[in-house]
């Protein structure tokens, strides 16, 4: 019985540690987005087209970063509630966010690879 309790504590500890670092990463991501947006505004220069393209790329990157940071922050929030109250529903929600963080990364990777393949195809076509 005592052994079971120790193992349960290990489970809690592993989840808590993971959630803690997820929160830290999420907060760092939010700060990074804010600084990148500021840099984009200041580095655009006088050329409106250049500024628009820099802003577009930054906003696109920032949206992805914010989405992943929200998922990680929610993972931390629900994990904390689940650990404190022993609520199974909160655990489900925490792991739902954990799952979709990895899902989002996978989908972004597929989209990015598709764009690279399309670009390479057109470059080869142009070279030929």
């Amino acid at each position, binding site marked *: 019985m005592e052994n079971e309790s120790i193992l*349960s504590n290990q489970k809690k500890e592993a989840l808590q540690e993971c959630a803690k670092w*997820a929160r830290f990463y999420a907060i*760092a991501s939010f700060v990074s987005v804010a600084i990148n947006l500021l840099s984009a505004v200041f580095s655009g220069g006088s050329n409106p087209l250049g500024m628009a393209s820099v802003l577009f790329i930054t906003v696109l990157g920032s949206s992805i970063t914010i989405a992943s940071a929200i998922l990680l922050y929610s993972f931390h929030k629900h994990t904390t509630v689940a650990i404190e109250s022993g609520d199974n529903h909160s*655990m*489900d929600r925490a*792991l739902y966010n954990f799952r979709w963080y990895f899902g989002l*990364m996978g989908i972004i*990777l597929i989209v990015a690879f598709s764009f690279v393949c399309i670009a390479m195809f057109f470059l080869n076509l142009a070279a030929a």
Partner: protein
Amino acid sequence: MEEQSIFNTELSDLSKNHILSAAKWSRFLGIVGLILVVIVLFISASMLISWEEIIDSLSTVASSNPALEQLEQIESLPKSLFLVAVLLIIAIIVFMAILYLRVGRNGVSYYSSNEESAFLSTFRSAKTLFMVYAIFTVIGIAVSIIQLFALL
């Protein structure tokens, strides 16, 4: 009657399904990471083979476009520095890919066997992943702040 903690019992089927799904995505990310390593190796090898030609073409581009004159500094870049940078990038990608694969393998193993050690390994690997990403993000923030001050 005292409510029993979820950690003294098994997780719900829904939670286990979430872990399985996360594990599958993680395994996919790990495999793509390893494929990326092969691509980086291939590109780096081709760059090293035709190093002189690349330097010459970059110098030509830099001399014809004043906005890119910083590219001329590449001429003085030693081959060994490039090699070290490539090896560092490869090492980081391999490390991350292994972590993703570990989350994947242990997550699937936890779903099928319900072993506590698999659960622990899944979340410990995920913790290391978040920790590494957080460290890189903090380094990125520091670099961005320096660049921002340079712009202002």
